[in-house]
């Protein structure tokens, strides 16, 4: 009897395990995931950041072999589109990106215009009105609707300087070569924060929060696989893992505001 019962328990356990495996992503091939150096999301200098933590946890849960590397954001989007890269993190969508990428949302935040105090900009509209002001942006970055509108308008007027990353934009802002840039809550470099805050003002864009998520290449992953990875991300959200990761980097209330949102 005891043996039989044990056998039944074993069979049930095995059954559940195989079921669990069937629900997980297909690990028959190694995957690629790219991070980009961007404030608290990821710092290459220290190889740490929110995205790094999210990636590590996601890889652990998937049980798959995933090679992570560091790339410029513009190159990440290019490779996601071609299917050469499977994943990246903290992506926001638009109509064009929806064609080649699928997303698993895990946080949302607002966008802000960071301007030098000496530029005389008090409201968001002031920036566009003063022809002398130059905006710095990271190549291939998109933002919330009002911010996108501002960037496109200034771009057409030759008033945008492109950058490959956040660090040179802060340097240029400190030097006064650019007078403004668009930032997110995780964009302050920890070292320079005090000096930057001293000479700048933050102006909020009047847009709702924008969802950020795991970027999945549609060319590389079939919809069923995308759904499995999305389930993993949702699992990290529902069991509080995501909030714990964000609480490592932000005060609890801001962390909560970022991770508790309605998926679009």
């Amino acid at each position, binding site marked *: 009897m005891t043996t039989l019962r044990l056998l039944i328990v074993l069979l049930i356990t095995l059954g559940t395990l195989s079921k669990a495996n069937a629900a997980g992503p297909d690990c028959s091939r190694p995957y690629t995931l790219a991070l980009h150096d961007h404030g608290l999301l990821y710092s290459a200098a220290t190889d740490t950041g929110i995205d790094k933590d999210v990636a590590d946890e996601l890889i652990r849960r998937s049980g798959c072999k995933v090679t992570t590397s560091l790339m410029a954001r513009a190159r990440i989007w290019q490779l996601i589109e071609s299917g050469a890269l499977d994943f990246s993190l903290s992506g926001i969508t638009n109509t064009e990106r929806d064609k080649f990428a699928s997303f698993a949302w895990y946080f949302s935040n607002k966008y802000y215009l960071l301007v030098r105090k000496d530029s005389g900009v008090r409201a968001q509209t002031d920036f566009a009105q003063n022809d002398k002001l130059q905006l710095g942006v990271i190549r291939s970055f998109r933002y919330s609707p009002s911010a996108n509108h501002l960037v496109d308008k200034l771009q057409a007027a030759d008033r945008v300087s492109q950058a490959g990353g956040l660090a040179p934009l802060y340097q*240029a802002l400190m030097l006064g070569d650019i007078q403004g840039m668009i930032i997110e809550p995780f964009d302050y470099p920890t070292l320079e924060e005090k000096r930057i805050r001293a000479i700048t003002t933050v102006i909020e864009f009047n847009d709702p929060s924008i969802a950020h998520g795991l970027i999945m290449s549609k060319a590389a992953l079939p919809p069923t696989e995308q759904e499995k990875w999305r389930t993993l991300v949702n699992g990290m959200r529902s069991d509080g893992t995501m909030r714990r990761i964000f609480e490592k980097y932000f005060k609890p209330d801001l962390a909560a505001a970022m991770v508790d949102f309605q998926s679009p």
Partner: protein
Amino acid sequence: MPAPRLLLPWLILLTMLGTTWFVWNHERQNARNELHAQFDFALRETVSRIDQRVAAYEQMLRGVQGLFATTPMTNRNAVRDYVETLGLDANFSGIQAITVIERVPSSDKAAHVAAMRRFGFTGYAIFPEGAREIYAPIIQREPDVKRDRTPIGFDAWADPVRRLAMQQARDSGLPAITGKLQLRIDKDADPIPGFIMYLPIFVPDQPRENVAQRRDHLIGWVSASFRMRDFMASLYGRPTPGLALAIYDDVTPSDAALMYGNAEAASRHPPASGNELRAREYMVVGGHTWMLTLATQAEFADHFASNSAFVIAVAGTGLSLSMALLAWFMITGRARALRLAAEMTRELRHMAQHDSLTGLPNRVLFSDRVQHELAYAKRHGERFAMIFFDLDKFKSINDNHGHAVGDMLLRQAAERLQKAVRASDTVSRIGGDEFVVLMGELVAANAALALAEKIRQAVRHPYSIDGRELTISCSVGVAIYPDDGDNEVALFKSADEAMYRAKEDGRDSIRLAA
């Protein structure tokens, strides 16, 4: 309503010019946008070409890094063979050297030097001299070309610019490049901007998940050194013509930070006619920032601009003018026809009432004036005179000198007559050499005689015709209303009779009607 009708061509002209302006402006905008797009593309392309090249060199260096996962750093032959198989040909002409650097804590310095000497580098020493906590001497340099090479043993860690990149590579585990520097191999030459790319080497099979682990397990670096101008020359693809490109170390565009300027940037051509496009881009290369500036020159605009805006402007203006002119012709056609008809009528009427030779009123018009004068004189009880005169022996002039000369004489005589009379008097030619003057508002018969005498004198002056001098006289008869007749026919008859009497009395004289 001629005014509003005549506005139409102007309206058409304005509308069409307006449309032309709109199309021209649109096209100009298009051309500007196109130029912009080309410029943006060129900037993106330039950044991308540099990125790709850096990535290629990174990959190559990762190969050397990978080698040390399987063999110790001191395996000089392995490194030499490996670099040899890379075949650093023209494709990698940007690279000056690949070096292997060992991390030597001060405690291991003596052992390290001794070991290097045992390898056969008898004079080996770490330089610059001095006691430091950590040394990072170059222990191997490949390809090992002896010429112009400084001996191995140079402590890269002692140089702050190199040290910064080495630290960055160590802490991140990723490739890192230095700021602008003069390579050791160029140390005796004129300043040639260069940079070095470092990759860390860790103890194999040890964790390197975080900064602390990476610092603990670092054993050295591999590096590749570049002269900036050779690096730029090794880029793939063709640069866009007419663009001045400069690359600065970090984010400040100063001469001290200038790493590279292409021929266009160096020559400082005049910018494209005031519409210069400029952009700067902050590239992040191997964790280091390069600022790239790009500016268009005339050649760029010439290369990409289209002249369709100019064609539109010229064609549009021409068409507008033609259309307006056409409209004007169509609208004014009737008016001009009417004006022509009126002019012709006036001319015909003039011809019907005037003598074609002298332009004086003819018999018809003269009669009309006499009727008017009669009516007026009758009503107001006034007097007027009719003065008849005939050129004496005019026929002989015609016979002797021809009709052409006779006609000219008649014309000159007519001019003199017109000058002699008052503006209100009418002079008329009524026959071959017969003239008659209607003199209104006559106060006394004497006034008529005085005018007759004035005319007679005027006619008697010599005439110069075709170089010939001719003289002629006239016989004059004067009739006064109402004394010599109370109607036109009677007055004519009286004057005519008086004139004949003058002829009979020997010509060149004046007779008053009896």
